[in-house]
């Protein structure tokens, strides 16, 4: 037993040395995750600002001017044109100069003063309907503010139903708060899976695998020696991303680090298990690369990272049950933003444990049966 541990230790050290000594390997380990963190943190946001809008104000009254001033005063909107003709709307929307066009009819103020409801037409470019929907929501909020003020100033009764809205865990509903904790799992999975799958394939391609097999290493020890370095490097990367989220983006961490790392280690075991399984199936580095990628794509898309799991069809939701990333993202969110305890994430831990057990035992079975 002690002998086996020594051998595994030797292999682990060799793997770490090989990865860390290679300057290219080093830079791919820690450069891309940080870079991706920054890109995702800044770019992957559904929050809007600087939305270009145009206005066709046929009323040109004090009331319409006031409404537009409210839009201009909001950081979310930026007026790009004052249209005069109805046909212009089409041009501005078509060539994407304006995401939103407001059309205010010529009896706008007259109707308001007469106590009648006045309409504002809001046209949104629906080529990205999610963005358009968000922009429309923003317009709605601004108009509501205008209404409240108008009613107060003109002695009308307040709206019969007012909303007091509060968002839990993410009071300002910032997409980045959702995105960055999710990256802890996503980016780590990408690297861990690739690294593990490649390390065995590289030995096969370079002929060093045979050299390993004539030493007293047992297949399970080789697996352990390959799994441990990837696990450690994965933990390092996760920590790096965690640091970027907290120190650079200043997203408050409300949970317990111990809980998070326990969750992560279950996840990393599952990711390493999948990597080893891939490596036991492929013959070359190229195959390892491409097969890992073929797995990573659906894992990422069906993880809840970009689109919510609950919006998927029921059948596909069942498919996501075997996706370790789904659980990792859930754990990261719940611990990071919601402060979940170990007991509360147990429901995510046991599926990960099952995935890890299944993939690791399959991989070790494949290892023993594919030594040709």
């Amino acid at each position, binding site marked *: 037993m002690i002998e086996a541990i020594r051998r595994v230790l030797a292999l682990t050290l060799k793997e770490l040395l090989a990865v860390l000594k290679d300057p290219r390997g080093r830079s791919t380990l820690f450069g891309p995750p940080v870079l991706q963190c920054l890109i995702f943190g800044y770019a992957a946001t559904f929050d809007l600002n600087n939305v270009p809008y145009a206005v066709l104000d046929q009323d040109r009254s004090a009331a319409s001017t006031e409404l537009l001033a409210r839009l201009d005063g909001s950081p979310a909107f930026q007026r790009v044109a004052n249209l005069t003709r109805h046909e212009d709307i089409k041009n501005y929307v078509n060539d994407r100069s304006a995401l939103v066009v407001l059309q205010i009819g010529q009896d706008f103020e007259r109707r308001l003063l007469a106590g009648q409801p006045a309409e504002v037409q809001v046209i949104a470019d629906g080529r990205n309907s999610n963005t358009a929907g968000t922009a429309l929501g923003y317009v709605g909020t601004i108009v509501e503010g205008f209404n409240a003020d108008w009613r107060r100033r003109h002695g009308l009764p307040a709206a019969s139903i007012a909303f007091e809205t509060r968002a839990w865990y993410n009071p300002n509903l910032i997409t980045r708060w959702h995105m960055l904790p999710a990256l802890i799992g996503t980016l780590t999975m990408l690297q861990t899976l690739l690294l593990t799958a490649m390390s065995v394939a590289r030995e096969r391609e370079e002929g060093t695998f045979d050299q390993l097999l004539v*030493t007293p290493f047992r297949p399970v020890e080789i697996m352990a020696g390959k799994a441990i370095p990837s696990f450690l490097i994965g933990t390092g990367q996760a920590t790096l991303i965690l640091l970027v989220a907290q120190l650079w983006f200043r997203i408050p961490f409300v949970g317990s680090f111990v809980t998070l790392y326990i969750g992560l280690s279950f996840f990393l075991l599952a990711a390493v298990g999948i990597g080893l399984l891939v490596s036991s199936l492929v013959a070359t580095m*190229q195959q390892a690369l491409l097969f890992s990628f073929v797995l990573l794509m659906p894992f990422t898309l069906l993880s809840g990272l970009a689109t919510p799991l609950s919006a998927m069809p029921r059948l596909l939701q069942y498919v996501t049950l075997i996706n370790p990333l789904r659980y990792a993202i859930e754990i990261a969110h719940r611990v990071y933003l919601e402060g979940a305890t170990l007991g509360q994430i147990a429901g995510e831990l046991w599926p990960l444990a099952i995935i890890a057990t299944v993939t690791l035992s399959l991989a070790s079975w494949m290892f023993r049966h594919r030594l040709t």
Partner: protein
Amino acid sequence: MNSADSQEFVLAGRDLRKVFHRKTGERVDALDGVSLDVPYGSLTAIVGPDGAGKTTLLRLATGLLRPDAGELTVLGINVVDNPQGVQDRVGYMPQRFGLYEDLSVRENLDLYADLTGVTLAERRQRYPELMAMTALAPFGDRLAGQLSGGMKQKLGLACTLVRSPDVLLLDEPTVGVDPLSRRELWEIILRLVNEQQLSVIVSTSYLDEADRCARAIVLHKGRVLADGPPADVRELAVGQTFIVQPAAQQTARVMQAQLLQHEGVVDAVPEGGHVRFVLEAPETESELEELAGGATVTAVAPRFEDGFMVLLHRNAGARPVAASIELAHPPQQNGNQAVVECHDLVRRFGAFTAVDHVSFAVQRGEVFGLLGPNGAGKTTTFRMLCGLLAASGGSLRVAGVDLRTARASARARIGYVAQKFSLYGQLSVVENLDFFAGAYGLFGKRRSQRIRWAIEQFELKELERLPSEQLPGGYKQRLAMAAALMHEPEIVFLDEPTSGVDPLARREFWQRITALAEQGVTVIVTTHFMEEAEYCDRVVIMDAGRVLAQGTPAEIRSHARSSPDQEPNMQEAFIAIVEKARQAGADTPSTSVAGNTLPISAPPTWLPGPVRRVRALVQKEARQMLRDASSVAIGIVLPVLLILVFGYGLSLDVRDAPVAIVLEEQSPEATGLAGAFQLSSYFDATIVKTMAEAEQLMLTRQVDAIVHVRANFARQMHLGEANLQVLVHGTDANRARIIESYIRGAVGAWGAQRAAEGRPLAGGPVTVVERMWFNEANDSRYFLVPGLIVLIMTLIGAFLTALVMAREWERGTLESLFVTPVRAREILLSKTIPYFVLGIIGLALSVITARFLFHVPLRGSLWVLCAASMLYLLVALNIGLFISSALKSQFVAIELTIIVTFLPAMMLSGFLFDLRSMPAAVRMITYALPARYFVAILQSVFLAGNVWVVFLPSFAILVVMALVLRTLARLSTRKQLA
């Protein structure tokens, strides 16, 4: 040098210099002022130990490297100015010929014939000749990757010789090739020289081959030591070369070791039971007798090798040192029992029998040689003995067990050195030793002792920090041996350990082997140097998987004796035995007769050269693509998967959002409001009584939002001051925002309905009438599915091509491809075409599914869609090719491709996230990304129609990008080695 000179010589070099720098900073003068003139129509050998500069010289001559100083003309062409001019006319075989392992033997040969424009008539003549030489015809359909090491070498040679060049440059063509094939190869070379007056320059480490040449150039450490007929070199050892018969109780090995102890002995090797030795200078008879310890000494005529050793000694002070090895714990010698035994060993690969009922036994402390032509089954036998391969039949015992089934710890009793150097290239000498010490479970003091032992015994001290891949050949071989001996095994397996190793290093190696055997270690070794069989106690000769002869070297030689007075040397004996067996059993083994030609297909000679070459390369690329399951996975499976996931799975739309409605009163107003939620298709409403219940539901994520209707809701509503509390689960901010606005919408709609029914409700006064153009149904699939086309085009375009150039660099297939008439732009073009076609298939697939399966409207022109997609595909292909040829490493290329193409296509293209809302710095970056412009075109052409104001600028930018990237890819693909 005047032009008349260069006209006269096929290769003329003046004062050539080339310096390399090791990663550790040392400077290596590969060529240090070399001048040489090689006349037309001659056969010239370049010989010299490792690091002499042989390969560098040949690479300069082919234009693959540029000299740092000096002038070099080949065929009268200045290589530096016009490398392509030279490459059009030379035939070049690099040390490691770049065979495509996923193409068959015939496909490899046809590829090179097509690239060099070999006509049908030439093929009809050349193919049978090449097949006779290589005996590869029966393996015509086998993939090159499945050939044995020696057979690959032969195929490389065949690919080089398929054309009729003006000059032939061969870099150690016979490394790893068996004596029979070597003989046939030399027959072809000599015939080419004699009949066609072809000029041939060949570098070699088989010194007997130099004797066949008209001229021999001896290089040492980048300088020319001798240049002239081989006889000049032979002369140097005249009167200094002797043969001595060892005493009865002494083996030739031991005698040799004794002789080498003397300073004056420049060389000593066992030969035919005697020892041949060379002295530094002629000696008197008495001195000779003293040297030989009284044995009979006979003077003999020197060979090239003898003169070479004298030359090296005089000029560089080099001589085989009395290398030895001392084991700290030699294996216990208890009698002469067999430690390796195999009986009727069989191994089949499909219908092919690689090892056919092989039986032999090796005694403890023996040096046992396994000899045989390429593909005889030597390596397969080795792999079975070492437990790397299961036997199909028969029994085997190594150190008393079958390593395949024995406990892993039993493997600690053997050491194994593979045919190919297989230690960790990036790790230094010490790190490699340290790892293998650990692998054998050594630790603490013993571990450091063993590492020190290895470094001392193998004299690795000065290079111990160097990454092992940068070691000179001889040192690599020492390190491999050292690693295999870390744990002091009883039995050592060495598979062609001296292949490609220079003569000095080979002698040193064999001294260590004999020292090991003296101390009781059993050594099993394969080799293609037949003279090395003389070092063995016993040898087995195999062919086509069978044992042909077995015995001591003397017994083997006697097998082949044709007349009693003539003793054949080992090589002659070997050839005789194999040929006799082949003639006798011509009908049995699967390797012979089965068909001695390859089918020859007519080349499309009517096509102009560039088109013909591109056609051949495209064919090759397409074959590789189709044979590789992983390309098919990325090119076909992944797009289909993505289409389904995007079309069915991904959605940003909120339907059936779980909401808790807290009803603290049961007024008609409150229940009416709750009813509105329950009826809405946007919500899946659960009604609870208390806030605490609702919060519990939200904490466990069973609901995404809570609508809190307080106890006095109805009364307050009539007063016009009702408050609804809304709590949303904010972790997924986007979804939270959508749900929140839907809640407002639902409440608003309920209010409007009440107003319509005449119940007072002061809404407004301003109401918003929303209109979503282009996507009235507000279906997120409308923009996700077109966005998918961007991802698929990126995937096929950049991803697969990022691997293709890097793969050729990594596998070393470009060196041979470069020295053909192929232009760099033709290589690039041929890598573009197959992936472009694959991309178009992916495009068709996505457009058809988008339109007919997911019913995304296509409001613009299909032609615009196709044109834009092809243009973007070209941009992506060129990004991949540029990255790939600039980085030359698959792993790094793919990492970079993900970062510069795939992530941006997903995140920074405007496909999912709004570009205008990004920070200015990020927005700036997006302008440099092709995906941005493609997404703009796609979203418009699908949903808005033909919006030329969007199309035209985007098209223009994509065209510019494609051109710039093409140029970059072209510039980074230079036909030169780094």
